[in-house]
């Protein structure tokens, strides 16, 4: 186990910045002042309390700690974390927070993080502190400046704020050295974003001590002020970056901010310098195992992981996506708590759906202790919804039922994604709006919400939203994406393209904007531009099958079928269950006149769409394509079934009618053919095909003999009372009216309910559909 940092010591990659928070240095300075000092400290604290604030109401004694000037530290999130790890009850009892916040109005007075730990808990924490201080350190996110770190047992001192609060005792500020006092001052100022104060004090501290940690904190202040160059210079002067991992990390961050990526890469290193260390450390001994587990309880994010993440980000900025992907994966493998890296991996489509799921399998969530389950499930929710739907749902159920987290944004987000992928736009909108009423501009929800609005062409809402977004967040990609989508909706491609471009400029990793940009070209028929835009997108988002799919579509529309096939296969490899891909594959084989294969793919696509709303454009176009395929295969009965199914529920379309008319003509059902063709012409009187076929049908009609099979003749028999008894005629008719047989009735109504599901099985559908598909997936 590592020793606590001495003043000049710097944290290693295994630690988080918690190690060098001022209290650490403080701790060693006051190494000797252990518990025996606590009682005086307590009384002192009380005194202070009395002096500084109006006495809190009775029963608020336990809150006295809240009034202490150290509060920022004591009650920083760490304090909460402590109670969390100690007592499950405090975990989900928000009322405590309420009580304390309400009990003393200390919050506003002394610090920003008004939260007090109930004294009982503090007591517990104290006791445990003595035994195993490492339990106290659970800080989860990387907020280097605000945490302190408990040392190992031997050095447990006041330095942990929990100790300070034990038994309602406080750190006595007067007990601290003058430098430490300055450090606290600096730290609190930083916390409260009083950066000038922090800089001022930090400068003084550093001048006094010359401690590299103080230099680091000063650089931190510069960073927060946005004075990156100064921060770099500062660190460079003392060549801190070479000795101090932390400083190196900060320097990397600064360089990224300055967009000096190559320099940043130099600082961070192209590969993980500790990677090799890892292996020896793994087999060095079992005793490191224990130490490791101790280390991992250092609740922060390991610097090594952060560095890897930083490397990934740099690679991303340098468009080196495969290296970036590796770096991110490494980051998350080193420390699962590095959500930043996980987020990059999942939301930026760096991994294919399968890879995402594989990744989560490899991750080790055990270091999260009690939180293992919850975090793991939340991570699962972030994964692609295209595969392993059951597991997503299982995770959802677990979170909703066991943790009551069904109103959490990530939970809702995953819900929305599922709805969207099922083309249930209305419902999706509903859920989105319900959430957005609480958090109007949530960047996770907005992209899907906007796409949804586009799908239902809610121009008015899009208009309002775009305006609000651009007014409030003119620098965000999403704002301009929304504007562009609005223009897409209005079919103003030129404007749409401009804004898509703007959006992707602001955030080059924002996939929807890239795709939208490419779509504008595709819609305008600008083959070359569209192709290059799509292939850029394909390069940027190696984990997404969409760019490849669209590329394939482009090639298909220019009849370059072999290239199209290649791209479709790529897309298919990434995601073999997306009905769109399957549909396009089917269409491609159709064009290649390989109808059997086409049928195979389209049937699969139809199966995949079974869960979808039967009215969705996808389902319809798949059915149409399948119908055409059957037609080509000469299976007219199946083809007719397909087309009839399409007409049952969906919008009327001339081509469908024409094809159906053709099929009836082929199967010699003249009356039906003529009726259907009439309907086609009613929609589009000038349709050449329909007219020709109609004339053909009518000509056949003239030639048809008026024998006993002619419907007219049969009909007149029917009407003729004398021959009405003719049973054969009747039974023949009967087949036409299925509702008559009682079984027929039930079958029929059943079909009604499941219509969309049953038919696709047998069903076939349409070739000229790529266009519509294009639109529908537009903004996914």
């Amino acid at each position, binding site marked *: 186990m590592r020793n606590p940092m001495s003043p000049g010591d710097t944290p290693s990659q295994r630690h988080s910045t918690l190690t060098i928070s001022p209290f650490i240095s403080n701790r060693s300075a006051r190494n000797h002042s252990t518990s025996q000092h606590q009682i005086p400290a307590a009384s002192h604290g009380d005194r202070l309390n009395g002096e500084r604030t109006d006495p809190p109401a009775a029963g608020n004694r336990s809150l006295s700690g809240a009034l202490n000037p150290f509060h920022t530290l004591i009650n920083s999130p760490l304090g909460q974390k402590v109670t969390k790890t100690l007592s499950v009850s405090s975990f989900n009892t928000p009322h405590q927070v309420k009580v304390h916040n309400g009990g003393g109005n200390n919050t506003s007075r002394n610090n920003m993080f008004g939260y007090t730990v109930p004294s009982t808990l503090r007591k517990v924490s104290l006791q445990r502190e003595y035994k195993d201080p490492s339990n106290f350190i659970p800080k989860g996110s990387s907020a280097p400046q605000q945490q302190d770190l408990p040392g190992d047992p031997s050095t447990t001192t006041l330095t942990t704020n929990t100790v300070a609060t034990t038994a309602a005792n406080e750190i006595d500020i007067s007990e601290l050295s003058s430098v430490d006092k300055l450090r606290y001052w600096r730290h609190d100022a930083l916390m409260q974003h009083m950066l000038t104060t922090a800089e001022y004090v930090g400068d003084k501290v550093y001048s006094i001590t010359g401690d590299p940690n103080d230099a680091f904190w000063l650089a931190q202040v510069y960073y927060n002020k946005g004075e990156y160059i100064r921060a770099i210079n500062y660190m460079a002067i003392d060549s801190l970056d070479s000795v101090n991992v932390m400083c190196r990390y900060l320097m990397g961050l600064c360089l990224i901010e300055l967009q000096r990526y190559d320099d940043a890469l130099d600082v961070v290193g192209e590969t993980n310098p500790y990677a090799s260390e890892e292996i020896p450390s793994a087999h060095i001994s079992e005793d490191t195992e224990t130490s490791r587990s101790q280390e991992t309880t250092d609740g922060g994010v390991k610097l090594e992981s952060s560095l890897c993440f930083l490397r990934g980000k740099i690679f991303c900025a340098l468009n080196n996506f495969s290296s970036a992907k590796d770096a991110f994966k490494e980051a998350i493998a080193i420390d699962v708590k590095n959500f930043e890296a996980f987020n990059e991996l999942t939301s930026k489509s760096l991994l294919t759906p399968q890879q995402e799921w594989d990744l989560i399998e490899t991750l080790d969530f055990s270091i999260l202790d009690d939180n293992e389950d919850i975090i793991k499930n939340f991570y699962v929710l972030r994964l692609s919804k295209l595969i392993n739907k059951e597991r997503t749902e299982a995770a959802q159920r677990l979170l909703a039922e066991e943790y009551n987290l069904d109103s959490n944004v990530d939970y809702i987000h995953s819900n929305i994604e599922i709805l969207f992928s099922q083309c249930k736009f209305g419902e999706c909108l509903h859920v989105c709006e319900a959430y957005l009423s609480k958090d109007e501009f949530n960047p996770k929800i907005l992209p899907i919400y906007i796409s949804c609005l586009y799908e239902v062409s809610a121009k008015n809402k899009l208009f309002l939203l775009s305006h609000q977004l651009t007014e409030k967040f003119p620098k965000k990609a999403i704002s301009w994406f929304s504007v562009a989508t609005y223009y897409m909706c209005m079919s103003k491609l030129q404007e749409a393209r401009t804004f898509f471009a703007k959006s992707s400029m602001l955030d080059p990793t924002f996939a929807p904007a890239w795709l939208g940009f490419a779509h504008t070209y595709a819609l305008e028929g600008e083959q070359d531009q569209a192709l290059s835009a799509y292939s850029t997108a394909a390069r940027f988002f190696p984990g997404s099958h969409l760019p490849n799919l669209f590329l394939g579509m482009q090639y298909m529309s220019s009849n370059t079928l072999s290239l199209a096939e290649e791209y479709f296969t790529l897309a298919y490899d990434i995601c073999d269950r997306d009905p769109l891909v399957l549909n396009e594959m089917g269409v491609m084989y159709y064009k290649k006149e390989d109808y059997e294969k086409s049928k195979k793919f389209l049937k699969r696509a139809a199966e995949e769409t079974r869960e979808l709303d039967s009215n969705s454009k996808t389902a319809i176009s798949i059915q149409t394509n399948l119908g055409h395929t059957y037609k080509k295969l000469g299976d007219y009965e199946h083809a007719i079934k397909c087309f009839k199914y399409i007409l049952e529920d969906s919008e009327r379309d001339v081509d469908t009618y024409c094809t159906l008319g053709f099929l009836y003509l082929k199967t010699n059902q003249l009356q039906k053919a003529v009726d259907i063709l009439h309907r086609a*012409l009613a929609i589009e009187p*000038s349709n050449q095909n329909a007219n020709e076929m109609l004339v053909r049908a009518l000509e056949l009609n003239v030639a048809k003999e008026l024998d006993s099979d002619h419907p007219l003749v049969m009909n007149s028999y*029917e009407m003729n009372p004398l021959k009405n008894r003719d049973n054969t005629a009747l039974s023949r008719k009967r087949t036409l009216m299925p509702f*008559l047989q009682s079984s027929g009735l039930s079958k029929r109504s059943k079909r009604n309910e499941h219509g969309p599901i049953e038919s696709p099985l047998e069903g076939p559908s349409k070739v000229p559909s790529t266009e519509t598909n294009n639109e529908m997936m537009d903004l996914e």
Partner: protein
Amino acid sequence: MQGDTLESAQLKILEGVKLGLRRSARELSQWKLYKSAKWSAEALHGLTNVTIDTNAADSSTTQDNDSPLRNRINMAIPSSPQVPAEQVSGPYMGLTESEYDLYLFISTLFDCKEFDRCVFFLRDAEEPRLKFLQFYSEYLSWDKKTRESTENVLMTGKPDKKSEKELSEKHLLGSNFLQDNTQKQSEGVFTSETGQQTSLAIILNELRVYLKKLDQRSANTLGLALLHYLKGVLLNRQGNKSHALSAFLESLSYYTFNWTCWLELLDCITRPDESSLILRHLNEKFIIKGDEPVSQNVPENNIMLQFFKLALLQEFNYSGSVDEFFFILENLLILLPNFTYLKSQSAIMNYNYMDYSVAENIFDNIFKCDPYRLEDLDIYSNILYVMQKHSKLAYLAQYVSHVDRFRPETCCIVANYYSARQEHEKSIMYFRRALVLNKKSTSAWTLMGHEFVELKNSHAAIECYRRAVDINERDYKAWFGLGQAYEVLDMHLYSLYYFQKACTLKPLDRRMWQALAECYGLLKNSEQAIECYRRALQLSSNAGQDVLLLFRMAEQYELILDIESCKQNMLKCVALEDSSDGSFVTDETVKARLWLARYEMRMHNYQEAYDYAKRISNGTSQEIEEARTIARNCRQLFN
């Protein structure tokens, strides 16, 4: 005689009918099916005066039932448990208290036609009847919006018929832009700017999902009936008639006293053969699942079933149907002697069988009993038009426009009036007005088509007829009109098809077969033409017509070089003329004789030829000239 038993059985039925009608009048108006409610109430009003002393509670509800307004007051009072039909018991019509309050709210919104608001407030409702109101409002809102956008087309689009004329021949079969638009609109998705999409398909889907979830057994039967009814309406509107049919049947099995549902069911039947099938189905398979009043819960006794059969027989007639019709009608009239609907049905039946004076008398009677009832009066005006009673027609037109100028019936009557005065333009204007008021009026479309024919505007006429058959495929007049209009345009391929359609609907009408035969003749398909002529002959009852048919048939035989058959027909022609003592001397008989004369001459039977030629005294100068020549030649030859 059969006396008491029959009497008491009838009384029992009467009682059931009364309860059923009463209940439906109240419930259906509660759930906003006003037309059905009106029909029920009207029927109730027309019931025979025999008072049934069941119990006091019953008679008290009788009074209440007269006005829907009082019904509503009545709802608040717990209805007496004695009435078995009272499935809706309790103060809140079987709703919970909060649902009932919601219902009151929605009900007023609905009455104020604020459909979107209804939908909004009902979005969380779960009760089947409330759910019905939600979907119904949704549908009405959609309907209103689409209609608002199509009405403009109808108003502005129509006048420039000229552009329509310019459509090339090719386009004729299809319809003009007008239809184009409305078709698309009516099928289309109506997207409001806020992204709320409504379309039939979407509403239908929601409805299906809801019905699927609903526990069929525990749910209120009225609610189920309403929901299935709405499903049927939506399906029908989508053109999915067979599914609509089963939905209506389902609805009716839960609740028979819903007249519009029966009407919609009727609307789903497009072919005559289907009508007999549905009758069979109703007789054999129909099960009433809802709780109807006693005596009405068996299909044989159910009065609504009788009403439906009546309407069906009126719409589809085949031989024998007339007798059945009048049999049912009489039975119903015993129960409901004062029900105007029954009278008008019988008038329409008479009109269908071209028995105009009887029909007129009945309408006169209706007119006296219920002078402000405008329904079906447009048919009355048709009768007057056909009978050329122009002054009476003028009076009627004046009268109805005083009653209500903005009823589709009124507009049709006025249009007929103008048509009778040969003011076809004005007539068309009024028909158009009628159609704005009720776009589903087939007869208005058909009549407008006739007007266009009068104006020699075949294209516009075709358009009108087409709209008529789009709405009601059973309108044989429109099909026939289509055929004729295309005939004028020399597009016999098309007219043949339409004549076939008309003939399918009216297989026992000579005119249909004759038209078909002529069409086949023009298309040079003589075999079929002959076949059709033969059929027409079978159906013909008029010797004058027979001559014509025989001659035409002979002509066709000649074309296929079947001279023997041709000759036979020509002979029959002549024989007919002879048998009628020369009262049937028509062009055809002259021609037949001439043909025979020529034929015999060619066969060297100069004596016969001479005889035939000699008898020719009428006809065109050419024919007479030719006859004379033949006669002269024959004389020379056999001399």
